[in-house]
């Protein structure tokens, strides 16, 4: 048993678009231990979802390509695996929960059939056994009356129930790693609370690791043990969840945390602090540090030299010239 269930080293996923090379994921390294939840946060187009798709082997090629790096899953570099072997891992050992429970289920099959498909693909079981497993997984994710709900079509279910079906599908083969890409973004807060509670319960029961991708720092604080902050395709900061929220080092992380209004702090805040400017386009990335144009503490070297990854101890990694 290797220490890190997932070990991504210097992953580079590039896309060729209109004659330019877009570095959607550029030199990203991260590790997830068995039974751990890693939160991957960042704003739109920072490379969170492309990282997930790279792990699953779902990057459309062309225009995309893995330009470098390794992804070790359970000690094996899955980027080097041929497709027929990857197919055995995908859905069985690594599964994925997508953002949109409305569009990621097929409307012309019953939800039971769709969960059964995953099980039939990976395991040799009789029809009856498959049905039993589907019902068991529905029960696990808290769908009431699973025996009859397996015959429902997606449109007969509410958003929260559909997301439970997606989770049941992801769990059907007892995966070691679940990748959840914005699993609660499309849901209402009270339903979100149900789903987050469910995911934590299932993680404790099955011992699976979770890669939790979201832009919502509040959700990350409640779910993750370790957090990686991405910006324009690169990792800016990675740390234990308490360190990241309690003692953020990177100016971008600090800016993000102070620009969200915090619920129930008692008195009304005067003004929100903001990060000036906008997220740079991948077509026109700045020289040096990617964040230098919006940074409040940038100095001359920031716009010339790309900062190295610095380890501040206790697994707290930061990519900034100004952090020591």
């Amino acid at each position, binding site marked *: 048993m290797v220490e890190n269930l997932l070990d991504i080293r210097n992953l580079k996923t590039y896309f060729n678009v209109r004659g330019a090379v877009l570095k959607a994921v550029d030199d990203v390294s991260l590790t997830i231990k068995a039974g751990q939840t890693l939160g991957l946060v960042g704003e739109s187009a920072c490379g969170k979802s492309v990282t997930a798709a790279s792990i699953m082997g779902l990057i459309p090629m062309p225009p995309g390509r893995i330009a470098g790096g390794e992804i070790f899953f359970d000690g094996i570099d899955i980027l080097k695996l041929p497709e027929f072997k990857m197919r055995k891992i995908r859905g069985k050992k690594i599964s994925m929960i997508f953002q949109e429970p409305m569009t990621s289920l097929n409307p012309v099959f019953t939800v039971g059939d769709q969960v059964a498909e995953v099980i039939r693909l990976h395991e040799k079981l009789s029809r009856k056994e498959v049905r039993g497993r589907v019902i068991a997984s529905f029960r696990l994710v808290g769908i009431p009356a699973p025996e009859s709900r397996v015959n429902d079509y997606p449109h007969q279910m509410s958003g929260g129930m559909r997301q439970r079906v997606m989770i049941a599908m992801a769990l059907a083969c007892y995966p070691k790693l679940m990748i959840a890409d914005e699993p609660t973004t499309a849901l209402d*807060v009270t339903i979100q609370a149900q789903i987050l509670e469910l995911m934590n319960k299932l993680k404790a029961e099955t011992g699976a690791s979770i890669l939790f991708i979201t832009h919502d720092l509040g959700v990350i604080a409640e779910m993750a043990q370790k957090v990686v902050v991405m910006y324009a395709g690169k990792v800016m900061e990675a740390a234990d969840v308490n360190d990241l929220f309690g003692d953020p080092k990177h100016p971008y992380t600090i800016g993000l945390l102070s620009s969200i209004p915090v619920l129930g702090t008692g008195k009304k805040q005067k003004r929100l602090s903001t990060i000036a400017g906008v997220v740079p386009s991948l077509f026109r990335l700045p020289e040096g540090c990617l964040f230098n144009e919006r940074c409040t503490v940038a100095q001359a070297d920031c716009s010339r030299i790309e900062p190295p990854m610095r380890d501040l101890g206790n697994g707290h990694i930061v990519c900034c010239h100004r952090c020591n």
Partner: protein
Amino acid sequence: MLSSVQLTSSPLVEVRNLVKHFPITGGVFLREVASVKAVDGVDLAIGEGETVGLVGESGCGKSTLGRLILRLEEPTNGEILFRGESIVGYDNKKMRALRKEMQIIFQDPFSSLNPRKNVAHIVGEPLYVHGMTNRREREGRVLELLEVVGLKQEHMRRYPHQFSGGQRQRIGVARALALNPKLIICDEAVSALDVSIQAQVINLLEDLQDEFGLTYLFISHALSVVQHISDRVAVMYLGKIVETAESGSLYREPLHPYSQALLSAAPVPDPRRMRERIVLPGDVPSPINPPPGCRFHTRCLYVDKVCREQEPVLREIREDHFAACFFAGSLGAKRAVTVSS
């Protein structure tokens, strides 16, 4: 500050027992077979210069309420008063004149701007419609507006696809400001934006309010944003307002069980702040057949016999703090009983 506004002047906008049912038709003759009770008896007053936040989950009727106030939808029943005058019976001509005073900012900055028109046209259109037909004059005003919302002169000839989400929302704000309105309805105006950009737009809205004395109805599902921007907050559930109070009071001490659950369910970006989270069972019932009695009783932790039979009305529990629950204000005691039994 707020109560003085209410005492000294009549509210800018007031709705009384407002109802909107959308018919569902069926059969050969398209008879009405049922109706979606989107807004079902709402009373709300917005004082001049005030920001009222309207929160609730999807399908609770908060956007419909906003659209009803602008008369983008015709109410099924009830009164809408603007400066004390009922506007429900207004014909198109009178309504058009009134629309100068009330504007809306939409949620999605990607679909609410016409991709074929440039910024000068988009922001200038309300000016043209309301009689500023001289092009030079109009573009001068557009330029002023762009400066107010933090855009530059060179942006005038550009098209929506050339802007980022935050910039597009600024264009939406400029368009809403064009006619010097009194009231702006912000329907999820910052929900589609990234956090760092969201803060910029929220600050902009607050600055504009100070500068032009605007009144906002701020509709959102993001509780923390509503808390930040609002003077007063109303919580909606299935077409009804279940609680309304001054913002600080509501967030400090929510009195309705739904507001309590909503606030406790919202994630807070602080891993060390351990809170007791109330996880509500089940889903929001369909607004086609809302439950009898209290509409929240199917998910309520404190449900009692009376809740299933009678509908609670909004009543003042604390000073300027209203809740529509039979047990509001004494839920703590009731909880102890429920837990022990």
